[in-house]
């Protein structure tokens, strides 16, 4: 199995008739993703890649029992598309567009949490469960089926890390791009919990970067996880993230640097890779040294 995107997923594509939406529909379908419908208001009754197109999300839930959606509508309209999906009862939403105003994301996030919806992104490559399907824009040939859960703030860096994992003979149960914007729909802990409970995931690899507090939050959750977590933080030589006025310093204190993240992760028992190239070796060690389920139970 995999997390979130599973064999039970019945996905729709919002914005399917757009330039990017229609191309990505083709790629997702080609990969075998269970895309049951598309939605573009005003284009109801047409087809894209032999996928039926509807005027609203509610109709796809009524007629196709859709339960997941990937958003390809332009940033200015993304908020309303996500709210429509939430109201229609969709439970997994992948919000791909970048440049969504942060105030819009705040609303999407709040409404999603209120209704128990998992909102991936925005500004995300999406989610892929190799062998099952993908909802998003990641190139499918970057990922192999396997038992490593992969979480990444950066899309392209997740491809890079997956490449190393694949080259070492492993693969991914699911890869999720959590989104590159300062505000995200779902908290990192949601994904960590899913992986921790997934019988087909052995190890979680987290690809972080400087700025924000996602890695610190992940460390906090990882303390109580059964499964081992390997983390890598990009940006040692990146220019320091600009804090926002005095307010930034007052809110964040000393969080956000590579050092603070590495410290928090190590203190939580997370294995921190200094370079991406070390990750396969760290995985090897975890598998060699002992049975993974033993690792898990030892931590319990």
């Amino acid at each position, binding site marked *: 199995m995999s997390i979130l995107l599973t064999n039970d997923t019945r996905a729709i594509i919002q914005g399917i008739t757009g330039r*990017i939406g229609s191309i990505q529909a083709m*790629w997702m379908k080609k990969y075998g993703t269970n895309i049951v419908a598309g939605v573009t208001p005003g284009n109801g009754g047409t087809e894209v890649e032999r996928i039926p197109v509807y005027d609203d999300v509610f109709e796809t839930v009524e007629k196709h029992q859709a339960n997941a959606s990937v958003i390809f509508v332009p940033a*200015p309209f993304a908020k309303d598309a996500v709210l429509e999906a939430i109201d229609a009862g969709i439970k997994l939403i992948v919000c791909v567009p*970048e*440049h*969504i*105003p*942060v*105030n*819009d994301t*705040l*609303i999407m*996030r*709040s*409404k999603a949490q*209120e209704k128990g919806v998992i909102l991936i992104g925005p500004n995300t490559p999406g989610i892929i469960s190799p062998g099952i399907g993908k909802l*998003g*824009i*990641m*190139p499918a*040939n*970057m990922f192999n089926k396997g038992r490593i859960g992969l979480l*990444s*703030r*950066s*899309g*392209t*860096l997740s*491809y*890079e890390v*997956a*490449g*190393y994992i694949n*080259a070492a003979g492993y693969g991914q149960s699911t890869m999720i791009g959590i989104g*590159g914007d*300062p*505000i995200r729909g779902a908290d990192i802990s949601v994904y960590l919990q899913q992986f921790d409970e997934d019988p087909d995931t052995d190890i979680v690899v987290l690809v972080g*970067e*400087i700025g*924000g*507090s996602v890695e610190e939050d992940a460390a906090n959750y990882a303390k109580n996880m059964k499964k081992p977590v390997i983390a890598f933080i*990009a940006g*040692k*030589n*990146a*220019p320091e993230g*600009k804090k*926002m*006025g*005095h*307010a*930034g*310093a*007052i*809110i*964040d*204190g000393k969080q956000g640097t590579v050092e603070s993240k590495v410290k928090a992760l190590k203190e939580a028992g997370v294995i921190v890779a200094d*370079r*991406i*190239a070390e990750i396969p070796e760290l995985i090897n060690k975890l598998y060699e040294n002992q049975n993974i389920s033993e690792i898990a139970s030892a931590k319990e």
Partner: protein
Amino acid sequence: MKLLEHQGKQFLSSWDIPVPRGIVVKTKEKAKEAFHEFNGKAVLKIQVPVGGRGKAGGVKLVNSINDIDEFFAKWQGRDFKSFPVETFLIEEILNIKSEMYISIALNPKAGGLIFIFSREGGVDIEEVAEKTPEKVLKLNLKPTEEYKEYYFRKELRKFGLKGKILTKLSRLAEKLYLNFKKNDLMLVEINPLVIVEKGEIFAADSKIEVDDSGIFRHKQFQEFRELEYITELEKEAQDIGVTYVKLDGDIGIIASGAGLAMETIDLVNAAGYKSANFLETGGGITKELIHRSVHLVTKDKNVRAVIVSLYGGVNPLVEAAKGLVSGKQSLDRDVLIIAKALGNQQEECWKILEEAGIPILKNHRSEDIVEVLKQRLEVAS
């Protein structure tokens, strides 16, 4: 986008928040002229989109034409934290009774906004917040709720405020909050917020950050965008639709993602070289975009080599390859360009680059592209 102090004050003033009387000048002569309107004393401040100028002497009380000469001698034509000092604000002196701190900011951690207030404002506010957190009011504001003036009034009251000053502050808080939401801001901060002898309040400084992604729906900021305090190359990058950051080495980096860019910098630096800059392409790559990006990262004459690292998801790698070739061929000097590209259409992309003689790495290992860089540079020297 960060507004300069005087730009921010223009907005505060339009929201009916009192600011000191001030004049914006670009030259010493204009500053002297303006000085006559301030009864023999004024404050002179450099206008830069970054903090810390007060401690560095970028804010000064001037009592004479002499003082102005001195201030300009110190600042004109200089940089402050790599920003050229071009604009100055000359302002009336306030009769300060006390200095407070007030702001509304994005709070990613809580997924909402945060209201921060302290009765002790000024340059040492971080210290106040760290050492005496009980003196600082921090209120998380939920995105789906609508906070009214009375909410801020109730909370501010608990900090010992009462009567006229309490309602002045609560109304100010409500204004900042409403305008934060209405204008798609990321930060609005007034520090110090000055209470003068007569009890009136003034925004003695202003820090406003606008959400770049929200600017499309705010005409008022689109004008400021033109005036944004950024370098020529950053302007060019905005125009192309990419992100460009200057560093201080000699290896240029183009990557189709911020994470990948940072990783490449780290590896380049670990290999003993230094990155000159990085350019992140974002999603919708075209031939034109890559062509112009190649020219942009090589405008810095120190750049002797460029690593181009691309993954093709939304990005059509074929377009990227074409842009890379035409970009390299149209450069007016010889710069080593090496590439790494994987994803949809990778084979076609590789073919184009190989035919144009651009070294192309066909695996995921950024360590290997740095290795290629090393070999090529060693060969060259």
